[in-house]
């Protein structure tokens, strides 16, 4: 259904200049937004009133001039999106009071623009299409009788969220700024951190209905041109009528849309975004979304956090190793337990075998069912507590800990060891929040394979997982950084975060050229001292 409306409604919008002079059938352009403006003021206003039927938030204010009777003008804006005081003082007042007697009607807009209205940003338009666009952005549109164009005056002023620290990327040390939903604020946050003319912002519009502005942000001399062209191509090819968040863009531009691993990075932190841009990556900012996408994205980035760069490198490296180990545990721990307990009992040390066997006495389910049930219960608690207020979260914790943990074991519903395994699996899964979805799916698949074939199944599953990981690309850059043929310079910021004075070149894989961060001499000096 949506496909049809998409086709009929969006085609003309996509290329306005092609359709502007040809007569468009009304069913393809029901609001007539493709038609040029009329020189008659009332006609334009009536067209707007027709478009915004019943809508009281659109304000029409018509007025004249105290020196001449022949001047008729009307401003239109959306209340609460525009600065009311600004409109009163800097738009209506000057026009009402200035002397417009000798100005010819055809030059009126030009005269107002250059000599009357004290506004820093305004533009002329001849199409209803862009009039509407400006209104939606909070600008004020001025129509003057006798002119077939309108003047758009910047007056945007609407309520927006304060800049706060992102909830899911908190750091103990380091900046606490986070992106907001407003694109221009977000761009400021980036621009303030890279004061270089190399920093480029390239705007695009996606979504035929929502007409969302997105912005590509990169450093001209570091970005890989081939990667940039490919990204622009993909964004241009997106044919969707609505962009409700950055994820819409992300899912539309990934290399392998069916993979459980996302090959697009995302962050809410300006400092992270800036460091990615400085590595030669491209940031994609989407208006209305506090999530910024970065591409190309490699697997190891999932394990990097902002804090790694703000704490000393030994501690940061240790934390990274922890995160990577926990990934392995979260994916494989249930399968390893299942394989040992149901297939390869000879691999368990005797005392452990005895205690597992004792704990399993009287448990009604086979181990695989027990494992799946408890993992399911864990995900239930996780999902239940994710979307509720913190007061209710406490009761969920009690239910989860007491009922699932203690009572279920006491009632011999689950064996106590499996509770430990699931608890470890769950805790380690939280360490890398961006991969938690992938973990659940891979873990369950591995568990199924293990239930059928034991440790062989686990090995095959892992084998296939690695084949998949190594086949992934992010804008043509290998997701696993081509491990195996990788050069020492490429892996200085992977499992171990080496000190800044040691990372003297950028990754060639990402930016295409191995550019220097610092001269070799400065590094030598530091090594000596």
């Amino acid at each position, binding site marked *: 259904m949506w496909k049809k409306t998409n086709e009929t409604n969006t085609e003309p919008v996509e290329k306005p200049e092609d359709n502007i002079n040809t007569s468009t059938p009304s069913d393809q352009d029901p609001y007539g937004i493709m038609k040029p403006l009329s020189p008659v003021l009332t006609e334009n206003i009536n067209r707007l009133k027709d478009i915004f039927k019943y809508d009281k938030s659109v304000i029409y204010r018509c007025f004249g001039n105290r020196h001449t009777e022949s001047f008729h003008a009307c401003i239109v804006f959306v209340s609460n999106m525009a600065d009311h005081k600004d409109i009163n003082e800097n738009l209506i007042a000057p026009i009402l009071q200035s002397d417009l007697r000798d100005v010819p009607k055809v030059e009126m807009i030009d005269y107002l623009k250059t000599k009357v209205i004290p506004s820093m940003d305004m533009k002329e338009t001849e199409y209803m299409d862009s009039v509407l666009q400006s209104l939606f952005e909070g600008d004020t549109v001025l129509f003057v009788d006798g002119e077939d164009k309108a003047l758009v005056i910047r007056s945007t002023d609407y309520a927006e969220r304060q800049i706060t620290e992102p909830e899911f990327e908190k750091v103990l040390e380091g900046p606490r700024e986070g992106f907001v939903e407003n694109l221009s604020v977000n761009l400021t946050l980036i621009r303030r951190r890279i004061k270089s003319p190399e920093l480029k912002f390239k705007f695009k519009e996606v979504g035929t209905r929502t007409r969302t502005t997105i912005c590509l942000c990169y450093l001209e001399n570091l970005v890989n041109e081939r990667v940039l062209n490919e990204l622009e191509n993909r964004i241009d090819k997106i044919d969707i009528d609505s962009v409700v968040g950055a994820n819409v863009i992300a899912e539309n531009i990934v290399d392998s849309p069916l993979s459980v691993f996302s090959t697009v990075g995302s962050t809410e932190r300006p400092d992270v975004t800036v460091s990615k841009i400085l590595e030669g990556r491209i940031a994609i900012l989407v208006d209305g979304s506090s999530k910024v996408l970065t591409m190309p994205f490699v697997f190891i980035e999932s394990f990097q956090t902002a804090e790694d760069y703000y704490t000393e490198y030994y501690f940061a490296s240790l934390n990274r190793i922890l995160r990577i180990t926990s990934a392995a545990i979260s994916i494989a721990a249930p399968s390893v337990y299942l394989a040992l*307990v*149901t*297939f390869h*009992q*000879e691999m368990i040390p*005797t005392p452990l*075998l*005895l*205690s*597992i*066997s*004792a*704990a*399993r*006495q*009287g*448990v009604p389910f*086979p*181990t*695989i069912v027990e494992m799946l049930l408890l993992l399911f219960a864990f995900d239930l608690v996780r999902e239940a507590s994710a979307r509720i207020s913190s007061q209710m979260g406490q009761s969920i914790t009690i239910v989860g800990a007491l009922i699932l943990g203690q009572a279920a074991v006491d009632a011999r519903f689950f064996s*106590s060891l499996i509770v430990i395994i699931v608890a470890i699996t769950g805790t380690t899964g939280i360490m890398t929040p961006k991969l938690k979805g992938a973990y659940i799916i891979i873990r369950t698949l591995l568990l199924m394979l293990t*239930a*059928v*074939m*034991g440790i*062989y199944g686990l090995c*095959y599953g892992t*084998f*296939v997982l690695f*084949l998949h990981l190594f086949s992934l690309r992010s804008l043509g850059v290998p997701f696993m950084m081509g491990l195996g043929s990788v050069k020492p310079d490429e892996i200085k910021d992977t499992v171990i975060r080496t000190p800044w004075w040691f990372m003297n070149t950028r990754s060639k894989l990402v930016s295409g050229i191995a550019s220097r961060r610092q001269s070799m001499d400065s590094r030598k000096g530091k090594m000596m001292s």
Partner: protein
Amino acid sequence: MKAYGKSFQKLFILLWLLLSILLCGCWNYREIEDLTIVAGAALDKEGDMYILTFEVIDVAGGPEKNHSSALIKASGLTLFEASRNAISVIGNKLYWSHAKMMIISEDIAKEGLVPVMDWLARDAEIRQTIKIVVSKEKTAREILEITHPTIEVVSLAMDQVFQNKDSVTSVPRVEEWKLFQDLAQPGVSTALPTVYINEENGNKRLFVSGSAIFDKDRLIGYLNDEETKLMMFVKNEITRGLITEKIEHNDIPIKISLEILKSQTEIKPVVKDDEIKFEIDMTVHGNIGEIEGYHFHLDRKGANHLEKHFEELLNKNIAAFIKTIQKEYGVDIFGFADALSARDPKTWKKVEPRWKEVFKNVEVTVNSEVHIEGAAIQKKPIRIRE
């Protein structure tokens, strides 16, 4: 590969994965609580029938209770049959992978080990590291009937003794693979540890001590603890342990324990004009563990003196022990044949058919070297003020 295209590659990998499933051995899904875990077994023979006594671990009490054990008796014409017959007693197939001990009765050991070892070698579940001991009691089953003060499962208790035994004194630790290796080697005889029951305040207690020596696979005699230790010195099997000796110092008898840290023995055959001699070179590193005598302060000079004393002692004892074995049993339990065949294969080929005779009269010299590394003294020796 490239000529066939990508879909073929994928198919190939898939096929390769699926086919390799068929290559893996015995695997099946079985729940852990359905296994009857065997901790050890005792092997007896009555007439033609083998009697197997299994000690199985009972975990039915759940996690709160200590594990206890139960004995199951099954008999059969072969050991395999006996072990399968146990199913009709216990209901489950027995699970052997965690079995620690195999106790063999004296009678079976005298008849020969090979017939009973065959099943151990063939069964996939039994580990090659299962320890094999000889019971000095009438039947092997009796050993499993004793009570242990702390561990309820006798086989596990016995296993623990073997884990720690070598830091006290020396008992050979023979696992299945070692036994097979020894049996297969020409001219090498094996020695198995022995267990017996010690009555103590009316309680039957386990005692692991000494060893049983074999001619090929037939039991020919027993060695006590001290003799076993000397045998192991020659065989280079000493890892830790003690040498305790009484010496005279300024006419006062003092008892000294030397704790062995490292011991290395090399048997060197010396062949001269068809006459075969053996030289045993030993290097022992040790610490003084205890000197009974409050006024005895050990300096380097004293240590040298002690070293010499221990060297003489070892030389004398080992030489005497080898003589006894040569005379009483005439069986090469030390592996002289092994050393000869490795160092001088030509001579070995010549003497191999009549090795038993040669061994009985072969001349052996022992050169030991003892190094006392430390006195392990943290404080001044105790002095009683008068």
